C-alpha cells in the first residue's frame, strides 16, 4: 500500500533527520558566555578540533560536543582550546576513560594586549606549560584516575585579567527532569542515557535517606537496549512505588548519578476530568437538539396558521365565485 510505504519512508527519514540534527546542533554550555563583542578586544570563538561537518558562520558558532562513542585516534591527543575575551569563560569536557588532553588558551589575532602573562592553575596548584607560542599557551594533562579530574584555569594578566576554565569531568547522564507519571497496575519505564558507554549500571531506590539497590526480579526489570542506554521497568505498580529513583553509571574515572521521580496515580484522577467533559458534551448536545425541536414546532405552528388563513381566503373566494 502506497500509504504504508510512504509512512515507512517518512518515519525513517524523520529518524535520519533527527539524528542529523542532534549531531549538528551541539551547543549548550558556555553559549551564554559568548555575549557582546568589545571593539577593543578580540572575538570569541569556540573551536574543537574534532568538529564534524558543521559550517561555523562567524563568531557565534555553536560548540560541538564530541559524539558519543566517537573514534579516538590513539596516536593524536584530543585538543581543546578556548580563545580568550570577555570576563570568564568555561568549557566542560567529558572523559569516559583515562587519556591525555591538551588544553589551550589562545588569544585572537585582533587582540592588542601586550606582554601577557599566563598561568595555569588547578585549584591552588600551578601547572607549568607544555608548549607556548606568542599567542597561545598549552598544558597537557594526563588523566589516569579521578583525582586528575576537575577544573583547570588559565589566567592571563596584562592590562586586564582574563581567565578561562576547563572542567574535566565524567560523562553526563540524561534522564527525565519532570516526574514520570504512571498508573496503578501499569508498568513504569525509566530510561537513562549516557554520553559514553559506562562499565556498569546500577539503579537505586531512595528509602528515606538510604539508597537501596534495586534487586527484586519479579518487580524490577533492567534492560540494556544499547551500551549507553539503560532501562528500568517497574511492574505491577502500586501507590507505594511513589518516590525517587537513582540511575548510576560507573565509568573508569568515576561514576555519575541522575534522579528520576515516579508518581503513581490511581485511575480516578483522569477519570474525573473525563466524566466532566463527557457531561459537558451531553449537555450541549441535548440543548442543541431540544432547541431544534422547539424551533421546528414554532415553525409548524406558524405554518399551520398561514395554511388556515389561506384556506379561509380560498374558501371565501370559492364562495364568492359560487
Amino acid at each position, binding site marked *: 500500500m502506497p500509504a504504508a510505504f*510512504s509512512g515507512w519512508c*517518512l*518515519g525513517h527519514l524523520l529518524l535520519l533527520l533527527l539524528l542529523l540534527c542532534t549531531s549538528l546542533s551541539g551547543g549548550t554550555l558556555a553559549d551564554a558566555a559568548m555575549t557582546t563583542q568589545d571593539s577593543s578586544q578580540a572575538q570569541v570563538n569556540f573551536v574543537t578540533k574534532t568538529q564534524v561537518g558543521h559550517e561555523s558562520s562567524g563568531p557565534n558558532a555553536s560548540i560541538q560536543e564530541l559524539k558519543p562513542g566517537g573514534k579516538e585516534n590513539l596516536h593524536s591527543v584530543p585538543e581543546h582550546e578556548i580563545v580568550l575575551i570577555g570576563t570568564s569563560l568555561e568549557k566542560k569536557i567529558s572523559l569516559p576513560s583515562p587519556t591525555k588532553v591538551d588544553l589551550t588558551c589562545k588569544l585572537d589575532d585582533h587582540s592588542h594586549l601586550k606582554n601577557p602573562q599566563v598561568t595555569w592553575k588547578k585549584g591552588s596548584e600551578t601547572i607549568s606549560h607544555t608548549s607556548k607560542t606568542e599567542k597561545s599557551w598549552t598544558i597537557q594533562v594526563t588523566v589516569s584516575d579521578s583525582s586528575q579530574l576537575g577544573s583547570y584555569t588559565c589566567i592571563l594578566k596584562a592590562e586586564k585579567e582574563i581567565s578561562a576554565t576547563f572542567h574535566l569531568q565524567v560523562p553526563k547522564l540524561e534522564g527525565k527532569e519532570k516526574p514520570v*507519571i504512571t498508573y496503578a497496575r501499569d508498568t513504569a519505564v525509566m530510561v537513562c542515557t549516557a554520553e559514553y558507554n559506562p562499565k556498569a549500571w546500577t539503579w537505586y531506590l531512595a528509602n528515606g535517606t538510604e539508597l537501596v539497590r534495586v534487586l527484586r526480579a519479579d518487580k524490577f526489570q533492567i534492560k540494556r537496549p544499547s551500551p549507553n542506554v539503560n532501562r528500568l521497568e517497574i511492574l505491577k505498580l502500586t501507590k507505594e512505588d511513589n518516590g525517587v529513583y537513582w540511575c548510576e553509571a560507573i565509568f573508569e574515572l568515576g561514576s555519575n548519578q541522575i534522579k528520576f521521580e515516579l508518581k503513581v496515580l490511581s485511575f480516578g484522577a483522569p477519570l474525573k476530568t473525563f466524566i466532566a*467533559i463527557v457531561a459537558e*458534551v451531553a449537555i450541549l448536545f441535548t440543548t442543541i437538539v431540544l432547541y431544534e425541536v422547539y424551533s421546528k414546532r414554532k415553525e409548524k405552528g406558524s405554518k399551520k396558521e398561514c395554511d388556515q388563513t389561506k384556506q379561509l381566503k380560498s374558501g371565501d373566494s370559492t364562495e364568492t365565485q359560487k
Partner: protein
Amino acid sequence: MPAPAQAGRAPGPPDGGWGWVVVFGAFVSIGFAYAFPKGLAIFFKEIQDFFGTSYSEIAWISSIMLATTYGAGPISSILVNRYGSRPVVMFGGLLCGVGMISAAFCTSILQLYICVGFITGFGLALNLQPSVIIIGKYFLKRRPIANGLAMAGSPVMLCTLAPLNQFLFDNFGWRGSFLILGAILLNCCVAGALFRPIGPGTALVKTQVNEEGKDALKGKTTEDGPMEKKTEEEEGKDCFEKVNQYLDFSLFKHRGFLIYLIGNVLMFLGFFAPIVFLAPYAKHTGIDEYSAAFLLSILAIVDMVARPATGMVANSRWVRPRIQYFFSFAIAFNGACHLLCPLASSYTGLLVYSSFFGLAFGMVCAMLFETLMDLVGAARFTSAVGLVTIAECCTILLGPPIGGILIDTFGDYKYMFIKCGAVMVLAGTFLFIMNYYNYRMLAKEEKERKTKEEHLKSVRTENEGKINWNKDSTQDGPELEPLRENGEGVKKEMNGTN
C-alpha cells in the same frame, strides 16, 4: 440571485442566519481534523520510551493517521451523499472519541497504530469532508468568507491543543491524556449536531440529485451537458450510474476539476515540508529551541488572521469572479517565500520569513475548498472533495520525506526550500494558465448555449401556439435574464453577487 418568480422552486442557500452557527461547528470540526495529528507529537517521545521502539516506528502513527484522514475521503463523500452531513459528522466524532479512549488502554505499539492511526484517523476524515460540504450548502454569496472562517479553525485549534497537550501530559502521563483527549474529541459530535440539514441538501438521493442537478444548472453554467441528461434518466437502471449517484466519477471529464486536481496534487508536494523542517532549520542555524518554537507560533498566529481576511478579500466584487487567479497567485506567492528563505540567515530574517509563510499558507488554505466549489458547483462538490483528497493523499505523504532526503544528501536545508518553492511556483503558474484557458472556454460555451436557446425559442414561437409559449417564457425568463444582460454572462454566474 433567486428572483421572486422562482418562489415555487427550491430556495437558494440562505447565506446567513443559522449558516453562521454552521460555520462555527465547521470551525471546530475542521480544527480538530487538521490540528489533532500535529498536536499528538508531544506524546511520541514518552510512548517511544515506554514501548522501547525506535523513532520511525512511532512516526508511523502520525503517518497512518494522516493517510487515513485523507485516504478515507471518498468513503466520507459516499456517506454524505447518502445520509447527509449531520449523521456522518456525529458518527465521526464518536469514532474519534472511541479511538482515543481505547488508545489509553493499549499495551502494544500495534494496538496504537489501530486505535490512534486507523480509528481516530477515519473518524477525523468523517469530520473533515462533511464540514466543508455543508458550508457549500448554506452559503453562496458569502461562501468565501464562510470558508475562510471555518478553515481558521485549524491554526486556532493547534494553538490551543499544543499547550493543552503539554499540560495534560505533565499531569496525567500519556495514558490519562489520551483518555481526556478522547472526551474532548467527542465535542465533534456537538459540532455535528449543529449541522442542520437544509433544503435540497439531504433526504433521498434520487430526488436530491435531481433537484441539485437542476439548481446547479441554473446557478452555475459550468456543468457538462451529459451530466444533466444522466440526472433526468436515472431510475437506478445502470450499475455504473448507481455508483455515480454515490460518488460522481464523471467528474474526471470535468475540465475545471481536472485542472484543480493536477494543480493541487503538484502543490502538495511542496506544501507541508517547510513547516515540518522550519524548527530544525532554525536550530541548525544556531537558534535556540524556544526561539525556534516561537517561529512556529508566529506562523500560526499570522495564519489565524490571514484565513478569514483572505475569505473577505476573495468575497469582494473584484476578486470573486476571478477567484481562480487569486488562488494561483497565493500558491505562487507561497513558493516565492520558500525560494527566498535561504537568503534569511539571521533570526530576524527567519521571523520575516515565518510571517510571510504564515500569510501565504493561510491564503492557500482558506481558498482550497472554495475554489473547488467554484469550479464544480455545490452539487458535485461532495464527490469532488472525496476524489481530490485521496489523490492528494500520496503527495502529502511524500512531500516531507522527499525534503528529508534532499536535506540528508546535501547536508543543507536550502535545497529543500528551493525544491518546495519551485514546485509551488510551478503549480501556481500551471493553475493560472489553465484557469485562464478554462475561463475562456466557459465564456465560449456560454455564448454557444445562449445562441442555441435563442434559436430554439424562435423555432418554438413559430411552431407552437402563442398562449403555450407565454407560459414557458415566464418560467424561463428569470433563468435567461442574467445571461442576456451582457457578454460577461459566465463571470456573473460564477460571481453569485447579483
